[in-house]
């Protein structure tokens, strides 16, 4: 693998990183492409590289990975309990396909990252949580390496099953539902042990940084959002997955994928827990930054959905909010009652039912459910609704007067 400096620091990578070993890479292809796992003598150096890289979590939270690892190390030293490492590939977001793809085509990179982190942390157990569909490939991969220290866990496929505490609950034999946070997982997680839970793509990046250094990692992306990320792009009912630079210009990515700007009405950035934008001249970054130019929007779990002109954005948003309301864990009163109410009001707006109060009602419900649950599901769902109201002001006005700017659907 060469370390050429790319000609552009934005958009789709010129040379793949995570998928450099080719599709469906076996152990031999993986070794040929990436070389062996670094020896234990480099462990301190590896930690330093991870720290210097600025890698942020690729599961949606975008938390600095090195800080998470350091927190687990501190807890382990303080409590004198061996930590546990969990690779989270459950991918509950229905629009996200990158984790599945990574686990099927580059499982060895993920396993490398998992084994390295476990080794460096002195973990007592390593888990890889993923839907049962990819387990055969993972078992094969483990067999190819002769590795038996990684345990596989089959996760459910509902939306919240991928949430960190939901994965933990599932691993402990309970329901795949979020738990009320009782401190950080790094202090006490699985069975009370200091727990490192990271997305499988993050593990793959860790495996590459350990081999090629932080400096290499930073030859992609920007200072604010270093490295690369996998992006799932949905358009007209089909999807593609590409590896892109951090802080990529959305307009450049769409151009590279030959999706003409003229055909785009809006883009959903960050998946179902994301935000809308009508202007593709934004950057897909780790976190939101609306004060810089161009504006940076959080890529979340690396998902974008293109909305063309033949679709009504309020109808699409209503569909998503219905799904989110149904996906509630139903454990917390405000979420269980607030989200369906918000969904019904949004549906009324999408269906052009004359009611001037609807936008205000939706906003109030959004504020009511935000911060009043044991996880961020209601917050993020409310934020999507508010984002739609803000971005599609014209459409909202049209709907309130009984018309729609984007479809010729009969008024129901």
């Amino acid at each position: 693998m060469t370390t050429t400096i790319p000609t552009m620091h934005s958009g789709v990578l010129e040379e793949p990183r995570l998928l450099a070993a080719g599709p469906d890479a076996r152990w031999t292809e993986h070794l040929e492409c990436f070389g062996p796992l670094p020896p234990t003598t480099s462990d301190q150096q590896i930690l330093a590289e991870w720290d210097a890289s600025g890698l942020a979590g690729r599961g949606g939270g975008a938390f600095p990975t090195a800080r998470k690892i350091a927190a687990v190390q501190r807890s382990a030293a303080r409590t004198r309990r061996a930590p546990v490492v969990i690779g989270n590939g459950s991918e509950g977001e229905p629009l996200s396909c990158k984790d599945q793809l990574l686990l099927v085509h580059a499982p060895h990179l993920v396993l490398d990252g998992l084994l390295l982190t476990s080794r460096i942390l002195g973990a007592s157990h390593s888990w890889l949580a993923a839907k049962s569909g990819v387990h055969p490939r993972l078992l094969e991969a483990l067999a190819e390496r002769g590795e038996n220290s990684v345990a596989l866990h089959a996760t459910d496929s509902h939306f919240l099953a991928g949430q960190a505490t939901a994965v933990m609950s599932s691993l402990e034999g309970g329901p795949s539902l979020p738990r009320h946070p009782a401190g950080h997982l790094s202090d006490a997680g699985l069975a009370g042990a200091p727990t490192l839970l990271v997305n499988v793509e993050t593990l793959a990046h860790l495996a590459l940084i350990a081999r090629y250094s932080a400096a290499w990692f930073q030859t992609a992306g920007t200072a604010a959002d270093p490295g690369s990320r996998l992006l799932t792009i949905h358009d007209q009912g089909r999807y593609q997955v590409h590896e892109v630079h951090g802080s990529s210009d959305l307009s450049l990515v769409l151009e590279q994928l030959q999706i003409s700007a003229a055909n785009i009405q809006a883009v959903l950035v960050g998946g179902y827990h994301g935000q809308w934008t009508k202007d593709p001249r934004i950057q897909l970054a780790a976190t939101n930054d609306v004060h810089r130019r161009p504006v940076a929007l959080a890529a979340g779990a690396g998902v974008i959905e293109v909305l063309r002109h033949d679709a009504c954005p309020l109808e699409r948003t209503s569909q998503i909010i219905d799904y989110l309301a149904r996906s509630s864990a139903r454990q917390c009163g405000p979420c269980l009652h607030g989200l369906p109410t918000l969904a019904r009001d949004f549906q009324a707006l999408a269906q052009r039912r004359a009611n001037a109060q609807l936008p205000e009602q939706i906003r109030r419900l959004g504020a009511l459910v935000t911060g009043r649950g044991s996880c961020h599901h209601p917050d993020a769902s409310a934020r999507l609704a508010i984002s739609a109201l803000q971005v599609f002001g014209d459409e909202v006005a049209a709907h309130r007067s009984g018309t729609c700017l984007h479809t010729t659907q009969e008024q129901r």
Partner: protein
Amino acid sequence: MSAELNINWTRCQGRGLCLELMADSLDSEPWGYPLPREGQGTDHGKVRVQADQLEAAREAVKMCPLSALSLQEGDSALDGQR
């Protein structure tokens, strides 16, 4: 001295004892669950408890039928971000 009331939403059933005891800090909402009043909520979803509400908060924690409340006392500035 300040304190923060933490509501375990997975346990809360909106029985309303805390609303009675801490009427200055908590309001009701359409479905009966506790809602921090204007300015009383922190951005982590906790409820700021003023010194004069401390006794009431302790009682609410003790009497909540679902054991859904917990109180974190002490100077929050020293505790740092959680």
